[in-house]
């Protein structure tokens, strides 16, 4: 079980679930959760290839750290936007924020 393919399969499942969540949810916070799933699957792939790909360095780990940093920044900004949306429109459903629609 402990081989490259099983990690890639887990990561693929997480990725598809994240895509599904991003497409079906209308609540902004729930969309953010889907994005976190996608980022986690990408990061898992980096670390898995680093272990099994015959590398003698740890480049995959460093990339994974950068992904985590960007996820933190993205979550902070996204939540600020969502709370602002709630203050202005009293909703967090992203399809109701359509006041610029012609």
């Amino acid at each position, binding site marked *: *079980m*402990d081989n*490259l*393919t*099983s*990690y*890639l*399969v*887990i990561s*693929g*499942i*997480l990725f*598809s*679930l*994240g*895509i*599904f*969540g991003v*497409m*079906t949810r209308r*609540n*902004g*916070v*729930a969309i953010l*959760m*889907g994005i*976190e799933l996608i980022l*986690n699957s990408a*990061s*898992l792939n980096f*670390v*898995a290839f*680093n*272990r*099994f*790909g015959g590398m003698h*360095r*740890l*480049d995959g*780990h*460093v990339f*994974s*750290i*950068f992904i*985590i*940093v*960007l*996820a*933190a*920044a993205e*979550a*902070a*900004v996204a*939540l600020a936007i*969502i*709370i*602002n949306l*709630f203050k202005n429109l009293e909703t*967090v*459903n992203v399809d109701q924020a359509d006041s610029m629609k012609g």
Partner: protein
Amino acid sequence: MSEVFFILIAAITIASAIWVVFSSNLIYSAVALLFTLFGVAGLYVFLYADFIAATQVVVYVGGILVLIIFGVMLTNKIADNRISHSSRPRFMAGVISFFIFVLVMTVIFTTTWHTGEEQIATATVNTIGEMILTTYLLPFEVASLVLLAALMGSALLSRKKHG
């Protein structure tokens, strides 16, 4: 023994990820996301990435998840934190994401991946610190700028408006 643990952790990760996506209560989704993130941290331990596993727990579980729960609490009344779904986009989204899933699985099982000799389990912190300050110095500095910009941007977005 470690096989059993691996399967258990993978099952917890995937089952709670399914719960994150399908639960109709946002608080339940957030709690399920906690188990998913912990499961991914456990998978990092299996991949000999001790530092990444610790970072995952500290940053994701301690930071991002708390932020998300704050977001849920601030934007929903506790009584009605149900999410409304419409069924037709849900079906289309299911078809599209299932197509993506099949595509990814096909690629995984038909490619012959280049696998070299396996890494041995060592402490990774020293090497990671050295690489961040030598090979990846520029991305490291850019990341600090990104964090600063995110901090200022979110403070600006969420402050009270004056006039």
